[in-house]
């Protein structure tokens, strides 16, 4: 157990090192990073001051060390467009992205788990085939296109017909969450469904399921209580991947629905050439995903002792 935990910890540290080095080097790949970190309208003195602050006259490893210290303090510098601390802008945007991710997770889980269970229980029947179609479609639909088609139907078409329609942009009441959450969650339904199905199939084959049936429990109790509870353990490990998918998806989906979150902040900053913000968002999101994955790995090892021995 300890060696497994240690292994995961070391890997997480390496991952954090990797993403910080990557962003650090990219900032320096095109010449003078001080020039891209200081607004154009400031005097030359500001650029010189920034060079000093970044330690550009010092060897690369010293520069990296300064860079890491800033990150550790949560200091990503000042936004070129917003003229205020990047960390402030990031913190402001977190609730929007987080709440959208939770809504999308709800969509993915509420479709994926029941369909996964049903397709395992009714293996090779019509239901299983429907689930298969859903899984393949979910994997293959471009999320940005799905979002626009949702807008076309629920925003434009229903509105033109004088029927109740959904708001097409912005974050507000629960109704504003529906389209972005579906567009983002749909891509993940396939994964949740597949994992639930295969782990459910394993569980249904096991001796304790035969035992539960032999005890005379109703099929409903056997499936939805005894089996599902055990089948959900592998699904939990998938959460790290789901969150990664949502963070990638947020760039696209938030852009389409004018959602005031981190993904949109990153894209707007790339187009506006606001490097401090771009690097701040990428490092924050990157480290967040690494930590979540570590937590998931540890939880999984605690729930399922086999992992500690089999997984490297």
């Amino acid at each position: 157990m300890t060696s497994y935990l240690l292994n995961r910890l070391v890997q997480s540290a390496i991952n954090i090192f990797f993403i910080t080095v990557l962003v650090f080097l990219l900032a320096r790949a095109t010449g003078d990073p001080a020039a891209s970190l200081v607004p154009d309208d400031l005097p030359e003195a500001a650029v010189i001051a920034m060079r000093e602050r970044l330690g550009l006259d010092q060897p690369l490893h010293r520069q990296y060390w300064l860079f890491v210290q800033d990150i550790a303090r949560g200091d990503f510098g000042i936004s070129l467009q917003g003229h205020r601390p990047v960390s402030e802008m990031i913190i402001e945007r977190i609730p929007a992205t987080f709440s959208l991710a939770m809504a999308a997770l709800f969509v993915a889980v509420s479709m994926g788990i029941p369909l996964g269970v049903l397709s395992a229980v009714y293996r090779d029947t019509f239901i299983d085939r429907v689930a298969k179609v859903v899984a393949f479609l979910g994997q293959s639909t471009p999320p940005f296109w799905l979002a626009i088609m949702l807008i076309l139907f629920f925003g434009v078409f229903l509105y033109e017909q004088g029927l109740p329609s959904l708001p097409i942009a912005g974050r507000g009441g629960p109704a504003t969450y529906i389209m972005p959450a579906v567009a983002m969650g749909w891509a993940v339904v396939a994964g949740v469904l597949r994992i639930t199905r295969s782990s459910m199939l394993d569980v249904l084959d096991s001796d304790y399921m035969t035992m539960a049936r032999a005890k005379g429990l109703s099929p409903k109790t056997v499936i939805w209580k005894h089996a599902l509870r055990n089948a959900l353990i592998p699904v939990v490990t998938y959460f790290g991947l789901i969150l990664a998918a949502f963070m990638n998806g947020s760039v696209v989906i938030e852009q389409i629905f004018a959602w005031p979150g981190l993904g949109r902040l990153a894209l707007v900053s790339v187009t506006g050439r606001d490097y401090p913000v771009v690097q701040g968002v990428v490092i924050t999101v990157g480290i967040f995903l690494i930590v979540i994955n570590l937590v998931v790995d540890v939880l999984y090892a605690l729930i399922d002792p086999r992992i500690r021995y089999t997984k490297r």
Partner: protein
Amino acid sequence: MTLDGSDTSASGSVAALARTSSRQRWLDARAALARAPLVPIFVLGMLLVCAVFAPLIAPHDPIRINVMENLTPPVWQEGGSSKHLLGTDKLGRDILSRIIHGSRLSLSLSLMVILLGGSAGVVLGLISGFFGGILDAIIQRAVEAMLALPTILVALVFVFTFGFGFWNVIFILSPFIAARFARMVRGETLSVKERDYVAIAKVIGASRGRIIARHLFPNVANTVIVLSTLEVGHLILVESSLSFLGVGIPPPNPAWGLMVAEGREYIATAYWISLFPGLAILAAVLSLNLFGDWLRDALDPRRKQL
């Protein structure tokens, strides 16, 4: 029991085994072919034909602007014309011709990434699995670190630094693909490595390079083929997302993602600008996924999945 005697009996039984298994394999292959997904294969065939012969098939120049005919609806709709079967965009460019030419961009970009990233990944995976030890540890740590990155966000930083364009998209996506391939191939190599014929090759004195090339690679090739098929689909989705965001393939190229984005502001009046390129992406990726899924079962029935 002489060395000679045991040798002959062993080779005899091996030959018998090989006979039955090759016959069995032939039967399996026939059964698998009977289950081949015809519609996806047809769609992929069309896609390939479109990509290769785009200029011959497309009725119009994909980037020629003709404002006089802009926002023409598809042919079956009022105001549509048979000149533009799927209608035109805001600049009067023919949607159908753009989709046909777009297949060229999407496919060539994805195949290029598979070629560059995939082959790097295969080599790394083989080395990692075969040699083990410190080399394996280093490669696997790097692969995991790569896979922990949020692809689209990292692509944004990369694009910020180097600008966007066809080749830049290829360069940023290749390492991600290399990591996926390396992980998969390493796993396969580890299991193939333990088989008798690899041990025998070692005993005979085959060089390590020869063992990797002649004994390991052919056995992981199936996995590589299946993974490549599925990853082409995945790459089409990622590339089109980047192009949609305006950080992938630049306009006026007829990239599918870009076309969907161009139709966004006209969604209330000219839905066809976004609808059809998106359907093209969906059809291509869905077909690749279905085909890859069948291929996996056909090449390796043991690993049947959903």
